């Protein structure tokens, strides 16, 4: 995504457009309908009723408990991610209203260390699930993740079990759970809470898989088909309920929530 001089160039069709047009179109290319990534704040704005969002679990912060150092320290990477995104973590959770209906909502942010799931993402999913159970309000999670956060070692792997356990309790309590797959959702997040929803909605052209195309390429020594892991392919393969354009998402979410009222 390049933004300069107020112009945006679509990485899918290469067309240029006014930044304002692009944003007004909800970060979807008006020429080719490519759904570009969107940060959590913007997602929130186009999804929930104005001023209805109340963040919970705000005080939870990642720590570099392994002193993980690759080419930079995890602690440094965390600081940078916070600066870059203006967010505390790869997910933001809270209560909000969608067309007047109360929901417990989580929004992941791919910009924050590739939306990777570490202890904080796990804990925030737990806080969010507990909130939905306690208040008996539907759970909605917008997913976007490259997988587990390697810098937390096996503890990040354990977040898969942790979040699945939370979702199990949501289901036992007969709370509806809707997950929205946005581009990309892969690895540990896709193999845990993202896929266990009652209803799974995906945005067009969103990648949704466990092993990503790069890993597959290493195994089969050639490029996977261009639609590998795409929402469109997942629909045919029975992994998602529907593909919904970003512009229709709030309407469809409302319809679904109405059904569970």
């Amino acid at each position, binding site marked *: 995504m390049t933004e300069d001089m107020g112009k945006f160039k679509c990485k899918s069709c290469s067309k240029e457009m006014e930044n304002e047009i692009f944003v007004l179109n909800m970060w979807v290319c008006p020429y080719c309908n490519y759904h570009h990534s969107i940060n959590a704040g913007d997602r929130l704005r186009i999804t929930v009723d104005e001023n209805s969002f109340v963040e919970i679990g705000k005080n939870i912060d990642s720590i570099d408990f392994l002193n993980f150092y690759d080419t930079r320290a995890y602690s440094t990477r965390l600081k940078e991610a916070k600066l870059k995104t203006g967010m505390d973590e790869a997910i933001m959770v809270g209560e909000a209203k969608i067309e007047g209906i109360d929901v417990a909502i989580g929004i992941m942010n791919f910009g924050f260390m590739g939306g990777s799931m570490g202890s904080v993402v796990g804990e925030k999913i737990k806080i969010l699930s507990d909130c939905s159970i306690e208040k008996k309000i539907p759970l909605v999670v917008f997913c976007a993740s490259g997988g587990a956060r390697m810098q937390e070692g096996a503890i990040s792997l354990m977040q898969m079990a*942790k979040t*699945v356990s939370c979702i199990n309790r949501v289901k036992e309590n007969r709370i509806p759970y809707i997950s929205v797959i946005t581009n990309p959702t892969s690895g540990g997040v896709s193999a845990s809470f993202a896929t266990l929803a009652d209803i799974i909605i995906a945005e067009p052209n969103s990648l949704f898989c466990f092993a990503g195309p790069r890993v597959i390429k290493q195994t089969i020594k050639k490029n996977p088909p261009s639609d590998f892991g795409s929402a469109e392919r997942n629909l045919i393969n029975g992994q998602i309920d529907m593909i919904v354009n970003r512009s229709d998402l709030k309407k469809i979410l409302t319809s679904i929530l109405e059904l569970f009222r």
Partner: protein
Amino acid sequence: MVNLKKLQDVPKTYVKEVLGELSRLEKLKKIPFFTGIHFKDAERELIRKIENYKKIGKDAERVWKIIELSRNEKRPQCRDYINGIFKNFVNLSGDRLGGEDRSIIAGLGKIDGKTVAVIGHNKGKDIKERMEYNFGMSTPYGYRKSQRIMELANRFGFPIITFVDTPGAYPAIEAEDNGQAAAIAKSISVMLEVKVPVISILIGEGGSGGALALAVGNEVYMLENSTYSVISPEGCAAILWKDPAGTKLAARELRLTSRDLMKLGVIDKVIPEPLGGAQNAPERMVKIVRKYIIDALQKYEDISGEELKSARACKFESMGFFSKG
């Protein structure tokens, strides 16, 4: 004071950084009146760094030896434990949906006079078997077979024993098309739901979600020289170091040894191996593991199904380190 000979044992990926700092220091030294830093302190700091890197490097070599042991082809495998521990083992096949994946063995057997379900990764003994079993990398068919047998065990109150030994889930187009992510998530979910004791033992490689899909136990044990990791060191190095040379360092950073994971609370016990590793005395290894299983089963004998389930959920829901400001 700092010379190249000192850099001999510094891991390759750090050498560049050290040399960079060194040449920066040398350049600064040449500026006549530069007093921005105290060169003596800076050099001492650099030497400390080099020593630390050497230690990390040495540590990485030690961890790497464990990784090699965990991948050793002569290590006892799931089948050896089944043959050595369970009487009257009946192998069960198929997910009843559309496939049978022999990279996972599942069945029922008796231990100590009690029927249990046994499920484990099957790496294969020779190259033919390894190919056939995808080197222990499972497809959704395998995970769904495992779910079926776990649900069977749950209905009849049979404890579940799992042997984990996989490089990870099978990364293939067909597996993805068949819902690899959903299959793993469901496996984790089923393991959390069952109302019987679940004992999971990592016997070799514990690779990522493919391992976790069989490892959500009330008790999770690791053999001394087994590993358990969110990603393979090779994969981690490729992503973070962007260089295969980082592999051993990644192995060290990931804290994937039994001792590390015991400290982190990811596992409950480390099972000691015979001197030099399980491959040196496979039969003794099997006997040791048998003892651990019997003890674990005894521990959970009188605990109700509800308690077993909620204890398991509690344990995994409390995993994670973060600050709460």
